[in-house]
């Protein structure tokens, strides 16, 4: 299959979304032709239409997709419609999407995944479902850890499941939601300590961190 890997993160190669794409690519294997797209860099091009499947990964951005990724989707829909209207082969294109967020719950990606499903409906692409991953920053922290490591295992299994939907045969189109096996309170403690540490490295104390430049005078 010709598989288009679309990175919808402004952090590009350093993104958790990139880790997701690499992880899915390793699950899909070398028997396919891959084309990588950085949606932050450009809108869709004609070459992006030459695919059988799209694998989209993106971070949750203020509850949905980053505006540059939205722009890429809109341009893809328009390009595909023009190609089909001018008699281009009406090939079937399937799509799976993986959204990750920095909150704890994977289910907070639901709205964003339903937006992608609506894109598929408009563009005439087969929506094969999505995966919403909470505790997204842990993707980077645990990148080198074994898949079956206890904390990482739920996410690894979910990635296995969503990767299995890539193919020519119809597959389930429901969404999966998951987060690392890491308790919420501990997650909050570690995250807050991390923010404070980064702020201190920039010379900021607790009061400066909570500055309110637009407070009413």
């Amino acid at each position: 299959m010709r598989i288009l890997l679309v990175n919808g993160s402004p952090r590009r190669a350093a993104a958790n979304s990139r880790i997701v794409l690499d992880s899915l690519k390793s699950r899909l294997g070398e028997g396919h032709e891959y084309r990588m797209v950085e949606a932050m860099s450009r809108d869709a091009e004609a070459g992006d239409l030459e695919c059988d499947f799209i694998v989209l990964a993106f971070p949750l951005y203020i509850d949905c997709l980053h505006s540059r990724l939205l722009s890429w989707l809109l341009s893809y829909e328009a390009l595909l419609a023009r190609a089909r209207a001018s008699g281009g082969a009406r090939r079937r294109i399937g799509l799976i999407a993986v959204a990750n967020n920095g909150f704890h719950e994977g289910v907070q990606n639901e709205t964003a995944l339903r937006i992608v499903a609506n894109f598929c409906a408009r563009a005439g692409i087969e929506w094969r479902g999505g995966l919403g991953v909470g505790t997204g920053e842990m993707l980077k922290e645990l990148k080198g850890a074994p898949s079956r490591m206890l904390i990482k295992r739920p996410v690894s299994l979910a990635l296995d499941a969503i990767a299995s939907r890539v193919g020519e045969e119809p597959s389930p189109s429901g969404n999966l939601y998951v987060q690392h096996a890491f308790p919420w309170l501990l997650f909050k403690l570690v995250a807050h300590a991390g923010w404070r540490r980064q702020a201190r490295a920039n010379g900021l104390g607790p009061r400066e961190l909570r500055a309110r430049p637009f407070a009413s005078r």
Partner: protein
Amino acid sequence: MKVFFLYDEDEPDRRAAGSALAAWAEKKGHELESACASGPMLKPCLGCFGCWLKTPGRCVIPGDRGAALAEAFVRPDLVVLGGATPYGCFALPIKAAIERSLPIQLPFFWRFRGQVHHVPRYERLPRIVSAGFGEASEAEDAIHLELVRAMCDCRAVPRQKRSFRFRGDGEALASWLEEAAAS
């Protein structure tokens, strides 16, 4: 009450809605400010967390309207967004403006309405509602309402009660805004 109307494109229907909003605001004694999100180019959010960890409360990106738009998401009592709703999302210029308002959140987490969110930076943030323009499917309208409600939860403000799509009826717009203002 201070109202801020941010719309996506300078189109006849948005101007008609703006006039209806202005008439409603005058009748009710509200102060109204309006802006078009697709005016001078707005640079996209970089996801750099500079607004949290380098210049807390302010975006680090210089030279455009981003900082002014972030302030516009703090000072009013009610923010009315108006634009197309592609796939149920916000119109591109509106979404870009919303992203540049990330400085109004703190990096820290809390649980609110049963889910984890970033803590609002300010004690009180404006209520926020969104009116759709143009055509959309029922699925897109449903998702757009869920999206706006999620934004309301992020800001710890009352949720938008129902979808609204402007079809030229200024009275329907006023009535919908009255509901939002009363919540």
